[in-house]
């Protein structure tokens, strides 16, 4: 049955990913660090995702604000709208949505890129020229995704809060400084940390899944396509799974 096979495949990938992750941590602290390669990848990731996360972030803030406004108005609590928007964005929507978009754009890109390098023997060529392809291709990409996603998420949080302001001024008269003031009153430091820190994990997941599937792509152009699409599916699934665990964990560490 297809479903059973998919489950089996998923677990075999998890097994391979575990090995890959261990190998990553064994390699990542050893010089040379390939800084220029990491920076090149970070630039590419930024360029690739900037416009899509900007649009999505703004609309999420806007929609969230418009949806919540009548609900809060019913309880006469419209003053809480800015705080509510900011809290939802910073704690959950910003990190999760940015990570999922990142998985879609970047995960598929890495899967396809490394997959085609595998299929056209570029990875073999690198190995024969005495350059470790795992270090040069995988470690640099995983570092780049791990560092880039948190930056993007912070940016998306800001944009979404901006989108929320637009929703607010549709129905209320509120200056922007006052809107920000209400937000700053509502959020605590403990709201910021978990939201941002989990994006390091999500970024790592996107990088390592895409790299693993690309690196192990099977021969033929079909293998490249599969590495690319499977990267998106598996990294999105893992992000959602890890997120639900981390949300629970956060509530234990930072009880309200």
């Amino acid at each position: 049955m297809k479903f059973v096979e998919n489950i089996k495949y998923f677990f075999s990938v998890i097994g391979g990913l575990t090995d890959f992750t261990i190998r990553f941590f064994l390699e990542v602290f050893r010089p040379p660090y390939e800084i220029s390669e990491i920076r090149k990848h970070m630039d590419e990731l930024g360029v690739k995702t900037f416009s899509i996360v900007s649009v999505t972030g703004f609309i999420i803030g806007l929609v969230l604000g418009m949806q919540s406004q009548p609900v809060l108005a019913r309880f006469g609590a419209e003053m809480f709208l800015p705080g509510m928007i900011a809290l939802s964005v910073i704690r959950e929507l910003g990190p999760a949505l940015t990570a999922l978009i990142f998985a879609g754009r970047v995960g598929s890109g890495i899967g396809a890129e490394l997959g085609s390098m595998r299929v056209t023997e570029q990875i073999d060529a690198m190995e024969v020229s005495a350059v470790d392809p795992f270090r040069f291709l995988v470690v640099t990409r995983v570092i780049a995704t791990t560092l880039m996603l948190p930056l993007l998420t912070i940016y998306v949080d800001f944009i979404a809060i901006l989108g929320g302001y637009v929703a607010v001024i549709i129905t209320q008269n509120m200056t922007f400084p006052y809107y920000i003031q209400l937000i700053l009153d509502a959020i605590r430091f403990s709201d910021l940390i978990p939201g941002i820190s989990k994006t390091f994990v999500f970024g790592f997941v996107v990088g390592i899944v895409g790299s693993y599937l690309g690196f192990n792509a099977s021969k033929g152009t079909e293998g490249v396509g599969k590495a690319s699409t499977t990267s998106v599916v598996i990294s999105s699934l893992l992000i959602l799974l890890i997120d639900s665990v981390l949300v629970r964990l956060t509530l234990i560490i930072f009880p309200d």
Partner: protein
Amino acid sequence: MIRVENIYKRFGDLVVLNGVSFEVPKGTTTVILGRSGIGKSVLLKCIVRLIEPDDGKIFIEGKNISELSLKELNDLRKDIGFLFQSAALYDSMSVRENLAFPLVRHTDLSDSEIEERVKETLRLVGLSEAIDKMPSELSGGMRKRIGLARSLILHPKIMLYDEPTTGLDPVTSKEIAKLIIDMQNKFKMTNIVVTHDMVVALSTADRILLLDNGNFIFDGTPDELIKSEIDMAKKFLSTSLD
């Protein structure tokens, strides 16, 4: 010197190499002929340990390559040039970056020395004008020659050529054959050339091996091949005659 002892390799039920042995003395060229899909590329890849044989030993410069640590293996690999059948150029890098890649990683040359060496090697394969192109802008034959340039750039002691002229026109093929001989004379390299091209085979080889069904069915000099009564040898020769 390269010595291959009793190499076995199978993929599932498919036996590709069935106890292959041969030796390539230092500074000589051995040509391996064989039909498509018979295992020539697999054999070459075993020699650089891209593929692990199921059984058997391979010695390069007296070292058993399966016993080397990764560091020792990489030191050895710096002395080996490998021209892939598909050229295997790095898609994301320009021709210049492709050629500079081994130099940047394995030598202390300055930027200007690297540039000089890149240009000199491109001249060697007759593609100086391609230096700023991306691999996707090159024809199949050009890719092959850039791949050749990249594998020669560290002046390796050993060169492994996987079908260096397949897909090239006869004129360029002859030039490549001449290049193989020139490089051989200049750097006293030890060569293994896998090919279907009888012009390349007869002009470069000190010795020719014919691989079929997992083992060599002919082993001799070019002259001996021409006189050989083996059916497969005759078939290969006839392609060069008509």
